């Protein structure tokens, strides 16, 4: 064994706080671990590949005629809606997988390493943006195949996609928090669905808001999901940035600011 020079505690240079640079570095390494995991078990991408295809087809052909008169004129409404719903929905899986992951012995090692405490969580969440990107691209491709043409051009489609991915990453901190708190992966799924279902359906994602009763319109109009959907519609439809983009990003930032510290603290408490 060639550990001839094991440093003694007295000669090591030590400090009690990881630097900002180290936090970023550790998180990126943990994200790399997440990507390796996806590479080893590509079957975990089933949901993000099948769901956009299935949902886009179903919702468009079921609701198209009823809501917009015909399928084709429904597409500019539904594609942004379904995009947001699918990608945000995917972020639940982040929480579920985090729970499963944390039950494994390797998290003990992560905890015993002198790394930034937030890194195992931030890394896992960062790696999952790959899943959001896949869902985003597939939804747009499905839309294109069904006849959806973004008037705003390819560039604004890309920006819209990016906006959805960033906001989903923000939202995923909520589910990461449940993932850390919950006892089992299935309970994470349960709680998350209860939150996400009303959030995505009580929005302007699928139907025009003015068809709803007043009290519901009030909620739909303050629902951040509605703002995100509107932002995507504006970007893909006209190629312009409105205040909805700013509201969506601010909403995501607030979620991260609240839930990231909560999640890290819960993670530290948990044995």
């Amino acid at each position, binding site marked *: 064994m060639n550990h001839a020079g094991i440093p003694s*505690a007295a000669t090591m240079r030590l400090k009690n706080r990881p630097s900002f640079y180290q936090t970023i570095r550790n998180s990126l390494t943990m994200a790399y671990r997440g990507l390796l995991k996806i590479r080893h078990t590509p079957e975990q991408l089933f949901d993000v590949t099948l769901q956009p295809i299935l949902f886009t087809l179903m919702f468009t052909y079921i609701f198209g005629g009823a809501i917009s008169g015909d399928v084709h004129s429904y597409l500019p409404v539904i594609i942004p809606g379904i995009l947001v719903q699918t990608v945000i929905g995917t972020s639940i899986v982040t929480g579920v997988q985090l729970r499963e992951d944390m039950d494994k*012995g390797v998290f003990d090692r992560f905890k*015993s390493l002198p790394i930034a405490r937030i890194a195992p969580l931030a890394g896992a969440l960062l790696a999952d943006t790959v899943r959001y990107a896949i869902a985003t691209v597939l939804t747009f491709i499905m839309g294109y195949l069904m006849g959806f043409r973004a008037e705003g051009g390819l560039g604004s489609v890309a920006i819209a996609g990016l906006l959805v991915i960033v906001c989903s990453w923000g939202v995923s901190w909520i589910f990461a928090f449940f993932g850390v708190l919950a006892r089992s992966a299935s309970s994470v799924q349960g709680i998350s669905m209860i939150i996400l279902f009303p959030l995505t359906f009580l929005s302007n994602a699928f139907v025009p808001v003015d068809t709803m009763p007043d009290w519901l319109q009030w909620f739909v109009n303050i629902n951040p999901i509605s703002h995100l959907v509107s932002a995507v519609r504006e970007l893909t439809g006209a190629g312009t940035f409105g205040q909805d983009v700013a509201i969506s990003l601010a909403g995501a930032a607030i979620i991260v600011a609240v839930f990231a510290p909560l999640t890290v603290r819960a993670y530290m408490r948990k*044995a």
Partner: protein
Amino acid sequence: MVKENKTLGRGEWAVEARGLVKTFGDNRAVDGVDLQVRAGTIYAVLGPNGAGKTTTIRMLATLLRPDAGSASIFGYDVKKEPQIVRQLIGVTGQYASVDESLSATENLIIFSRLLGLGRGEARRKASELLEEFGLTEAAKRPLKNFSGGMRRRLDLAASLIAQPPLIFLDEPTTGLDPRTRAQMWETIRRLVKTGSTVLLTTQYLDEADQLADRIAVIDRGHVVAEGTADELKASVGTSSLHLRVQRAHEVDGAKRLVEHTLGVKAALSAEAGKITAPMSDADKVTDLLIALRTAGIHLAEISVLKPTLDEVFLTITGHGVKENENSASHEAEPEEVLA
């Protein structure tokens, strides 16, 4: 990554713990444990399942927060300076703390990267450690197909990346076959030769005996005995000598000779013609054998039994090993206890 330089005067103790307590619900898993481990030594914490060994290690390794008491690693407090403590330790858990979903190489590369090694450095370190632990052939295979021994070796390799001055090994050989177990012992001994301190837990008295400079016996969350292996065994009692005579009617004469020559009290066991006596001085057995030959008493069988963990517990705590009642012979057959 380091700016502050803190030198350390109290480097003598690798571990100093006072009155550590951890309660889970009603269960006081660790109830006032004191430990002092001198740097550069192997220290064993010996006890049955559920005695509080793992909980103690987890507190020392900053994985669990003690409810009461204090502990420091090379003088750094585990509660106040956990991030420094983590830079001084390597932890190998009871259940291999490696990533099941990745290959051995990927595991080591990720841990190396997390510890601050560059890309190339991490790759070199990984292949170096795999070579050292005889895992090169399996380097690319998924861990799902690894045997228990390979997993443990990889786990230990991962703990050595940063060459930490203190290494915690939680039951490093539980569930390993005798050959792999001996290899693990060899590795642990080499570690200490290079200057590391090792704190290990074990259920096996012989493992503590073989490896450790000092041993703490822990039971129901308390340290019930502490000392060197010899001190501990002396407190437990000695090995016992078992004799069986060829002709059953000579057993009383043989017993008198045993008591006279060894100067101890011998017992007749239920089995015909069998004598059991404590053996404190092996040298006197020569005298006994000569005396038996002179008296014309022929032996059918002679054996020496060392004290077992069960006996250690019986003597020190007044009760036997409560857990594992169904595998009373686990002292002799470690592979029965699956990890």
